[in-house]
């Protein structure tokens, strides 16, 4: 872990109201990110990683979702105790920014790219102090000429930092007129422009081709390091996580199951789910193995460890009690009653 802790999520529980009943989408999740650190949040679809990312941003759907328990400490303050106006004005976009999965539909199709950049700077320019942002009223939202000019310079600098050719021309275009890779570069530029401390990147390369993905990952990694920005990087692709993450955390069905430094994670998986997931990678040793069974529903999920119905090692304890956190040293921690630990290593050797 680099530096001190920037974000600490503890025992977060989120449920969604559905027709079938209350869906417990997050079941006591813990997570920490240090300043300047890239944390990969890895899991299959429906594991709750996007819900976790949105909880931190405070943009869960208001009618359907409810945070029932837990804390989200960002730089020491509990975001769950803050009101929506404060979060929207001071935190979101300024101290925590966002890179979406789909760079095409995340721009408004009917405003030019430049308009949307300037809209961002109007509300979120790094020149605005926290006090000014917090006190913002309808009347004080004028955008002075001098600040506008300085902000425009910032935009141009940033566009060259994300290696976009002809930045003036791009700002005049509409989102449908630029390519997918360029759009994602623009999204990264917007996320960095406000000089945030944390970027939440929700599957930012999933919609891209593999060569473009490589370019974007390279860019994001370099810029985050250069500006000492922490990144919460959700992905379902273990290879992508390997590429840019300092640490990796795995989720399964709304529970965090294992967290470890990147190298450690792939070399010494300790949770049976992590282990089986790695064995499902094409090219894994010992041939291709999937995980039999399906991801459970959230309305009446299995008790205890939610992976137990698909786990070979499941015992009675697994069915009733959610395992606590077992620290394995050097930031590696697992939540399992029967961690694979050394026993697994032996098997792997033989």
């Amino acid at each position, binding site marked *: 872990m680099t530096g001190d802790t920037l974000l600490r999520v503890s025992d977060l529980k989120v449920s969604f109201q559905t027709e079938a009943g209350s869906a417990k989408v997050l079941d006591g999740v813990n997570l920490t990110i240090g300043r300047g650190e890239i944390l990969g949040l890895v899991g299959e679809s429906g594991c709750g990683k996007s819900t976790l990312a949105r909880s931190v941003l405070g943009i869960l759907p208001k009618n359907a979702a409810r945070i029932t328990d837990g804390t989200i400490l960002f730089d020491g303050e509990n975001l769950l105790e803050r009101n929506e106006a404060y*979060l*929207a004005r001071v*935190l979101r976009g300024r101290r925590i920014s*966002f890179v979406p999965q789909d760079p095409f539909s995340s721009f*408004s*199709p009917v405003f030019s790219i430049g308009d949307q950049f300037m809209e*961002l700077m109007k*509300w979120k320019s790094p020149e605005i102090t926290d006090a000014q942002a917090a006190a913002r009223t*309808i009347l004080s939202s004028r955008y002075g000429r001098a600040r506008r000019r300085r902000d425009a310079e910032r935009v141009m600098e940033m566009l060259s930092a994300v290696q976009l050719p002809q930045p003036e021309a791009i700002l005049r275009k*509409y989102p449908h007129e630029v390519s997918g890779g360029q759009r994602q570069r623009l999204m990264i530029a917007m996320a960095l422009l406000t000089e945030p401390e944390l970027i939440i990147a929700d599957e930012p390369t999933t919609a891209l081709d593999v060569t473009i993905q490589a370019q974007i990952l390279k860019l994001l990694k370099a810029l985050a390091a250069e500006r000492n920005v922490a990144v919460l990087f959700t992905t379902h692709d273990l290879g992508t996580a390997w590429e840019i993450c300092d640490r990796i955390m795995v989720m399964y069905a709304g529970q965090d199951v294992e967290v470890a430094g990147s190298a450690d994670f792939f070399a010494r998986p300790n949770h049976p789910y992590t282990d089986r997931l790695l064995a499902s990678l094409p090219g894994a040793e010992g041939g291709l193995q999937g995980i039999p069974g399906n991801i459970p529903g959230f309305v009446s999920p299995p008790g205890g460890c939610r992976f137990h119905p698909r786990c070979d090692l499941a015992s009675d304890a697994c069915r009733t009690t959610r395992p606590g956190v077992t620290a394995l040293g050097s930031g590696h921690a697992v939540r399992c009653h029967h961690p694979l630990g050394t026993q697994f290593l032996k098997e792997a050797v033989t």
Partner: protein
Amino acid sequence: MKLLVILVNRLAWLIPTVFGLMAITFAITHIIPADPVAAVIGENASPEQVAALKEKLGLDKPLVEQFVIYLTGLLRGDFGISLYTQRPISEDLFARVPATIELSVVTLFVAIAAGIPVGVISAVHRNSLLDHALRIFTVSGLAIASFWLAILFQLFFSMYLGWTPLQGRVDGWGPDPITGFFIVDALIIGDFEMLGDVLAHMVLPVLTMAYPAMATIVRFTRAGVLEAISSNFVMYESAMGFPRRVIIWKYVLRSALIGTVTQIGLIFGILIANSVVVETVFDWPGIGRYAVDSILNSDYNGVMGFAVFTGVIFILINALVDILHGLIDPRETR
């Protein structure tokens, strides 16, 4: 570039559409087995009288020749002679156009000014009590027969409460026609008493016509906003902390309206349809009233003239709306 294409395509499409419309109205009068002559001079006319009238109206010529005469007449702006007043129909129609346009434009303005905010609020507070109340209000607007609403308004506001004039466009003669639009004319001559009187006369017809039009606008706006509000860019802008009102009233509304601008044509259709009966009830001297008078007097030519005239206006409006849509949607123009 693309805008030019839209423009040319729309204008090119105008010609066959107008031609088709004329073919349809011609077919209605000449192919449908009905005898306009009998209707004009009665069942008991002698064969000689019938033949004379047929010759006068050109009905004794072959169909194709009649069609050509009909077409060339229309293209010159000649809608024929009224069977009832014996005056050129086009003269009567053009004299009545300003009254109808004034009523429609004011109505459209009222309907848009009320309908768009209501639609946005309804969508933003989806499924709230307010939304349900507004939904009942708008569904009612689409279910109400406007001639009945007009009569109820008259009954209550004019006859019972005496708040508004019963009917007509103005008391007395109105301002000297400069543009023909009384509001504008009253403003030009600076006669504010006259202006007040003109506006008072407009209240009920405008409200009657605006209600269903507004209901339509509310529905389209609500649907458009709901669709736009669930799109990814709204999620992104919320995640970046854009002010809620900027997201809704700038980004969402612009997206929603661009999609619904094409429906203005539909709303004009509703206005034209309603103007026929509303002008009748309020004795408003517009083209809708002319159509009804023609019907009552069995004036086929007058009715057809009305049909062609409003048809052409409607086609022109729709073409303009399409071009407008091309102008404001960046995905169309670039």
